[in-house]
């Protein structure tokens, strides 16, 4: 073959092109491989563990954060934190997805036009807010409404003090669900004047639990603690397995995991409780000693004016006979008898309920009926039972100006305030608020001229806001924790930031302190601290004075401390305020693990000095409300004051609206937030394939009747409106009942589905006849194919 010019040119051209194409292909394959193999988190870094407090819900469990190279990569429970002792619920596990959520608000935003937002500096944002608040406080009427979904803690106290100093008089906090039961217990067991108290259950030591409608495993009290206690109840290393009986109309996860689910007609929880009481009375199973010595209103009695009153015993014996109770509740009499006998079998029995979920705290009369069961078995203040315990929490150093702002969790009072055309609305992590308001009420929010929302993510509150102040997650700031809802011991905890705040976000506590400085005058005087650690240290001084309690330790330490306590000893873990501050930072907190006594409480701060089945305070209140003294027979009057059960919840129009809809809270979204977090969305649908959607659960009977199958789009219609949902048919669920999770897909952010069709739009709150606040949101509806 001759290599002539032509061939040479072709050859060199070919070689050159070949080499070039080859290199490019190599690069292309390399790039292709790179594109297919996404980033790994591999980077040089040391592994360290830092403690923090989770604030995904108001509970506040201790978490231990694994950081590699200063980046948090895993969350688990903190074994030293007594509330949860190294377990966290799935929300805590997903904390990192919240921390690094792509829709985090990174800088303050001011609304600019219809849909636009303008990023501004913190200075500008705070100046704007200060100016607006100044203007409003100088006007005649104080028209600032503030709502906080944050949960108890120092930040909320700071907020309350700030509001008080700037002229507002009420801070609405979202309800915990325990309000009604707590109120009932205070009416019956009395309330120490001046002291603030909360209701607590010593569930860890309960041997038999009657659960009237509470979704224990789906977010009750503080999830990680409740889940841990459940595990302890069934721990085979324990002497006795705790019995859990669940009364409810729906087969929730909590009902399914109980030892026995007792299907109870909706609205009859109190009746069921009184049926149990009937058995205790007729078989003489109640704690006679406690009842005789420490309970008032059990037997018939005569008052100072000479009128004779019916006692609890007579009322129950005559009006809550098993046949009647069985008819009303749908529970077979034999079941009630068996359960009552079990309940009274030994020490450590407790009854909890009714419902006790945020937004559905239950009826006062039902709560009193359930507490009467506790009284009958003599567990008030006893180990495994229920009691009112002092609620200290972190306290701000005293304000010379006097009383603080009132904290209210009444939705009705909030609605009244919102209806009064306020000028300024401040929403502090209050996304769950919007789920409790109807569409009409939410529209009213749009009329408020200045709305500030403090939030970490873009959420449903941002669409109403004029100013957004970016908040931090608990990993990015100093956090304080305290005893969560219904927890039996006092706890005060602290943690340092694990990483620096992302973007320009700032913890709300610090924001308030900065705002106070800008606003000057009495407001600065009310909040004189420079930053959160200074507030925490100032607050810790008071706690250091306590002659009780210990810094956090291990479970072994806990056993030792209880042993000491039994012998009447207490050794202090600290000798000075400084040492206490250092200790509390290092160990994570302080708590008082005092065991509840084996014996029940023997003296009560009530007018009679006893636990009152017939509550004098309630009687007085009813009189003040104009219920009329003794209109009707004495029996009618007594029935109102004694624990009783009102009529069953019936449909106003059973033709049009035959099904009872129960709004439910699921654990992944407990606290009504977290819909934006993908890991939580993925686990939200246990019965199949409904994640990222809004669905309703129907029984096979009801769906068959309506020709509905799983996956069909349906209208859920009540007397006040209708919303569209996807239907899910669940085997074994109660006919006539529909369960509707309150949350579903997020309405903001990258996975948003627009056109909010919130459940609150069709719900008709049932108000408690005495308290006039909502006791339940169960509403009669009809469902048909869309």
């Amino acid at each position, binding site marked *: 073959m001759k290599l002539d010019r032509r061939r040479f040119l072709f050859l060199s051209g070919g070689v050159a092109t070949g080499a070039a194409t080859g290199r490019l292909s190599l690069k292309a394959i390399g790039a292709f491989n790179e594109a297919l193999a996404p980033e790994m988190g591999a980077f040089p870094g040391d592994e360290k563990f830092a403690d923090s407090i989770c604030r995904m819900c108001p509970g506040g469990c201790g978490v231990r954060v694994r950081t590699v190279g200063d980046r948090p990569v895993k969350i688990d429970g903190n074994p030293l934190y007594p509330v949860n002792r190294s377990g966290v619920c799935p929300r805590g596990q997903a904390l990192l997805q919240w921390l690094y959520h792509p829709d985090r608000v990174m800088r303050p935003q001011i609304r600019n036009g219809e849909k636009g937002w303008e990023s501004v500096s913190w200075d500008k944002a705070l100046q704007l807010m200060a100016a607006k608040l100044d203007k409003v406080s100088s006007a005649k009427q104080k028209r600032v409404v503030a709502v906080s979904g944050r949960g108890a803690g120092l930040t909320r106290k700071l907020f309350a003090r700030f509001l008080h100093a700037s002229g507002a008089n009420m801070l609405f906090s979202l309800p915990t669900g325990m309000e009604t039961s707590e109120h009932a217990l205070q009416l019956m067991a009395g309330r120490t004047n001046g002291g603030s108290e909360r209701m607590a259950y010593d569930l860890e030591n309960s041997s038999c639990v009657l659960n009237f409608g509470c979704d224990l495993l789906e977010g009750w009290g503080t999830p990680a603690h409740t889940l841990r206690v459940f595990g302890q109840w069934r721990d085979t290393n324990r002497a006795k397995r705790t019995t859990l009986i669940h009364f409810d109309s729906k087969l929730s996860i909590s009902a399914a995991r109980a030892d026995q689910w007792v299907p109870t007609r909706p609205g009859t929880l109190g009746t069921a409780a009184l049926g149990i009481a009937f058995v205790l009375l007729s078989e003489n199973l109640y704690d006679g000693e406690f009842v005789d010595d420490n309970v008032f209103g059990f037997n018939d009695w005569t008052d100072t004016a000479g009128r004779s009153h019916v006692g609890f015993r007579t009322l129950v014996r005559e009006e809550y006979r098993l046949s009647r109770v069985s008819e009303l509740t749908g529970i077979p009499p034999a079941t009630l008898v068996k359960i009552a006998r079990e309940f009274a079998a030994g020490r450590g029995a407790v009854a909890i309920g009714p419902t006790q979920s945020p937004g559905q705290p239950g009826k006062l009369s039902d709560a009193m009926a359930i507490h009467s069961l506790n009284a009958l078995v003599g567990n008030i203040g006893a180990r495994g039972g229920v009691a009112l315990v002092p609620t200290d929490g972190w306290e701000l150093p005293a304000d010379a100006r006097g009383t603080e702002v009132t904290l209210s969790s009444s939705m009705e009072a909030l609605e009244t305030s919102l209806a009064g055309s306020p000028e300024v609305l401040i929403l502090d992590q209050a996304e769950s608020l919007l789920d409790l308001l109807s569409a009409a009420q939410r529209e009213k929010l749009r009329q408020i001229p200045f709305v500030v929302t403090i939030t970490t993510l873009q959420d449903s509150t941002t669409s109403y806001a004029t100013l957004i102040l970016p908040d931090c997650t608990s990993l990015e700031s100093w956090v304080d924790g305290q005893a969560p809802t219904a927890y039996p011991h006092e706890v005060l905890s602290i943690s340092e930031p694990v990483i620096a705040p992302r973007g320009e976000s700032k913890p709300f506590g610090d924001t308030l302190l900065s705002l106070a400085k800008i606003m000057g005058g009495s407001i600065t005087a009310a909040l004189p601290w420079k930053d959160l650690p200074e507030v925490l240290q100032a607050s810790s001084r008071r706690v250091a004075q306590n002659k009780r309690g210990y810094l956090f330790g291990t479970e072994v330490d806990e056993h030792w401390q209880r042993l000491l306590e039994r012998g009447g000893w207490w050794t202090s873990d600290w000798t000075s305020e400084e040492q206490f501050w250092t200790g509390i930072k290092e160990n994570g907190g302080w708590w008082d693990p005092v065991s509840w006594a084996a014996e029940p409480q023997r003296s009560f701060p009530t007018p009679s000095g006893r636990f009152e089945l017939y509550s004098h305070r309630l009687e007085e209140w009813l009189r003040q409300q104009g219920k009329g003294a003794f209109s009707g027979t004495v029996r009618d009057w007594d029935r109102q004051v004694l624990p009783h059960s009102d009529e069953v919840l019936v449909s106003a129009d059973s033709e049009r609206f035959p099904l009872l809809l129960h709004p439910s809270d699921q654990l992944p979204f407990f606290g009504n937030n977290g819909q934006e977090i*993908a890991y939580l969305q993925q*686990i939200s649908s246990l019965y199949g394939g409904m*994640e990222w959607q809004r669905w309703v659960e129907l029984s096979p009977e009801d769906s068959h009747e309506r020709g509905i199958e799983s996956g069909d789009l349906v209208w859920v219609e009540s007397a006040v409106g209708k919303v569209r949902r996807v239907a899910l048919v669940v085997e074994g669920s*109660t006919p006539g009942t529909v369960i509707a999770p309150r949350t579903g897909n997020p309405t903001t952010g990258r996975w948003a589905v627009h056109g909010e069709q919130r459940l609150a739009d069709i719900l008709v709150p049932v108000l408690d006849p005495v308290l006039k606040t909502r006791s339940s949101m169960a509403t009669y509806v009809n469902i048909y194919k869309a």
Partner: protein
Amino acid sequence: MKGARLDMPRWGMVIDLDKCTACQACVVACQVENNVAFMGPSEAQRGRAIFWMKLAAFPEGKFPESKVRFMPMPCMHCDDPPCAKVCPVDATNITPDGIVRQIFSRCIGCRYCTTACPYTRRYFNWYKPEWPGESSMALNPDVSVRPKGVVEKCTLCHHRLQNAREKAISEKRPLAPGEYIPACVESCPPKAMYFGDLDDPNSEVAQLSRSSRAFRLLEELGTKPKVIYLREGERSGVNRS
């Protein structure tokens, strides 16, 4: 089990269904620990969400005697794994200490193993995993991020075993019991999960595996699963009013 050695542990797990609260903390803990990709709405609705640990819910019965049973299901780490038998490239096989491992870089995505697994505990990466914004900052550096086209499943947090062994070697001591614990077992709030060496007669898992409440899933298939369940306690049978 082929290749088993007497001097090596045989890792197994016990899940006490009586204590399980169906909270799914284990599910999320696993996903966070192992950099499992999450799905948005449309992918999830196609049933493509990946759950190395899945909480299966089995409603049974008719009202009012109805009940729901919950079972957390990780990979069973069978001693005779059907998935390992069918893999054409040996991307999945069983280690001498009983972990059915998945070698992501060798997997060609044929999904033969996914079909073979009778417990349906294997997942295929249909999509390229995306970590929007800065969420990739939270990735665990000890575990790789799988690309599209690869099958993945529970590894019993094998990387934790590696780390623990490596640390033990550098400190010139044997591995301590409890030093190696998968993320799910560590996370369980009611402490319903136990993990350890099934061949060590003194270990908790070995003792619990011999309990009268113990059972395994689909034993009749001969897969010899090493995840053992403990039946629910008394009174948790069919709901009788």
